[in-house]
């Protein structure tokens, strides 16, 4: 990582390294000399460019911008030029940087020169700073490698007097207070972790005094506190609204509660004040067993890592038990007062993401249908009969403008069924789709229970006229054990044969999470040719058995 700033950044560097360690990364950090942002970026032979960072973090402060603004003449042309120059610099930064750019936006400083009339004149610094932040968001639409570290939002949350410490600034040229540093560093690492595929996908909720006030088993579904009538119900309503938004964004919501199941479900089914309903919940576990075991059950049904789960419970004892038994899961220390839940949760930024596609919102439904599928499978004694009964159909396509966001997103999320774990952004996927040196495939899978959407991606690199190399093969774990691997291989073998290729080379790169595909290639009939490298002879390949129809 490279860190460039126009104020002293030594403490920020230390904080980023520290938070990096907390998240399991040893950050190799290049720190430019103080106030060399422009020189390092614009000079192609600079130390910064030599370093070749995967992530470039640039922190140009509002403070220094205000200084330039203050020295400028107060004319429309003057102030607009200043901002235009700054934006042009960010463009150049994105264009000349190989890796990803994480650019800090501008927390406002209200210099009160125009009073509140600042809102009515372009000349004011307030107007220009707000506009600049808006323009930065616009730039991300143009540059896929640009990510904004929203420290303006942090300042909104905690206040300027907390973010900025004048005595620290005067004696060290450092713009951030010591208290702010861990939060700012954390926001930087949030972005990096999300791009690297480490982020939260699932929220598991306790019920009594977490989702509603009171104990449903004692109080009854009519008397729990939720909505605008009873007690502090409003706090729980707003909490539920937040959860609902997360669900709509594609976070999987699960319930894990110590309750009788029928009692626990009653509020969701009968209480009109409840915002959350049964169909918002992907997995519902309510019993009197240990919560850690119940969370393991949720994990098995959803088939995602513990490190992608957040567990919310008002009871410190339950939190401690879960944390102790499942160290990877994130268990926030909810404040005692439910009225404080939301503001506290906002401060943690638990659900960072590096991409979003509109298909995300259907995820809950997909997990619910998966639960039905599991029940149905139990009725068949013969696996082939069960497969046939599913009436599976797959749409096979290259990368299109429509599926690119989903492909990129899946490349960032897939950890287990992922042979080489190469992460791609939207921009890179679009470029691969156009490349004549690659053949790209996306697969959907639909069956009689529902549509899983896009669930598998293969990118083949044309090594020479006879050889295809499997650069990428990943699949959503939702569709394991449906013969999708066989279908995928049949499809790419057909492609290879039609285009005159003689062999397909596959490589397995082990990670902590992809052990399930260690034997993927040998299982599919590939022959080992080197360590973790396998070859398939296209000419002698016989299509493998599967019950999926190509569309």
């Amino acid at each position: 990582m490279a860190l460039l700033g126009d104020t002293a950044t030594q403490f920020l560097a230390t904080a980023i390294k520290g938070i990096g360690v907390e998240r399991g990364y040893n950050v190799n950090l290049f720190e430019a000399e103080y106030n060399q942002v422009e020189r390092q970026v614009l000079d192609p032979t600079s130390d910064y460019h030599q370093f070749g960072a995967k992530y470039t973090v640039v922190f140009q402060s509002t403070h220094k911008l205000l200084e330039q603004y203050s020295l400028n003449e107060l004319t429309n042309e003057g102030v607009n030029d200043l901002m235009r120059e700054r934006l042009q610099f960010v463009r150049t930064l994105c264009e000349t940087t190989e890796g990803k750019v994480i650019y800090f936006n501008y927390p406002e400083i209200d210099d009160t020169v125009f009073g509140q009339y600042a809102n009515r004149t372009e000349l004011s610094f307030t107007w220009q700073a707000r506009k600049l932040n808006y323009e930065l968001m616009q730039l991300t639409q143009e540059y896929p490698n640009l990510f904004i570290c929203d420290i303006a939002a942090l300042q909104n949350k905690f206040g300027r007097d907390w973010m900025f410490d004048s005595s620290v600034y005067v004696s060290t040229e450092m713009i951030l207070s010591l208290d702010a540093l861990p939060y700012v560093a954390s926001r930087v690492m949030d972005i990096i972790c999300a791009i690297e595929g480490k982020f939260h996908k699932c929220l598991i909720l306790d019920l009594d005094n977490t989702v509603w006030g009171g104990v449903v088993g004692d109080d009854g579904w009519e008397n729990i506190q939720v909505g605008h009538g009873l007690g502090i119900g409003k706090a729980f309503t707003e909490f539920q609204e937040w959860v609902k938004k997360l669900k709509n964004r594609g976070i999987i919501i699960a319930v894990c509660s110590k309750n009788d199941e029928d009692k626990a479900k009653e509020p969701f089914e009968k209480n009109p004040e409840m915002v959350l309903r049964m169909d918002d919940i992907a997995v519902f576990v309510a019993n009197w067993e240990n919560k850690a075991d119940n969370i393991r059950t949720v994990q098995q049904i959803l088939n995602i890592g513990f490190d992608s789960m957040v567990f919310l419970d008002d009871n410190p004892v339950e939190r401690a038990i879960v944390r102790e038994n499942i160290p990877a899961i994130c268990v926030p220390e909810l404040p005692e007062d439910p009225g404080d839940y939301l503001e506290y949760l906002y401060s943690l930024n638990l659900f960072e993401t590096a991409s979003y596609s509109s298909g995300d919102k259907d995820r809950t439904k997909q997990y619910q249908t998966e639960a039905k599928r599991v029940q149905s499978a139990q009725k068949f004694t013969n696996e082939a009969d069960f497969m046939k009964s599913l009436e599976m159909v797959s749409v096979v396509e290259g990368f299109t403008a429509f599926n690119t966001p989903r492909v990129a997103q899946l490349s960032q999320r897939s950890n287990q069924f992922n042979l080489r774990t190469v992460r791609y952004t939207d921009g890179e996927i679009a470029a691969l789709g156009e490349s004549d040196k690659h053949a790209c495939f996306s697969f959907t899978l639909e069956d009689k229970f529902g549509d899983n959407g896009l669930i598998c991606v293969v990118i083949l690199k044309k090594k020479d006229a006879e050889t295809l190399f499997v650069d990428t093969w990943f699949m959503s774990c939702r569709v394991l054990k449906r013969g999708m691997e066989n279908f995928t291989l049949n499809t790419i073998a057909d492609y290879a044969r039609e285009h005159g290729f003689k062999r397909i080379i596959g490589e397995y790169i082990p990670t902590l999470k992809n052990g399930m595909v260690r034997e993927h290639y040998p299982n599919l009939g590939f022959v080992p040719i080197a360590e973790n490298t396998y070859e398939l002879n296209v000419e002698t390949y016989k299509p493998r058995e599967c019950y999926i129809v190509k569309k």
Partner: protein
Amino acid sequence: MERNQILAEVQEIFRDVLDNEEIELLDATTADDIEEWDSLTHIQLIVAIEKHFKIKFTSKEILSWQNIGQMIDCIASK
């Protein structure tokens, strides 16, 4: 608070922030006497002292101290 008491508490803060249990502070101690005490750790020390005693130094005060004794005087005067 007694001046000696302040000195003892400041010494604890120095040991904690600089991660060195052997630091002994005297009125005459300066940054030259303690290896880990540089311009960066200085600011960490100041913020830690401010939090501990629930006081706030002015920038001018921070720049004016020549040794630990003057810092202690400043804390005592708050």
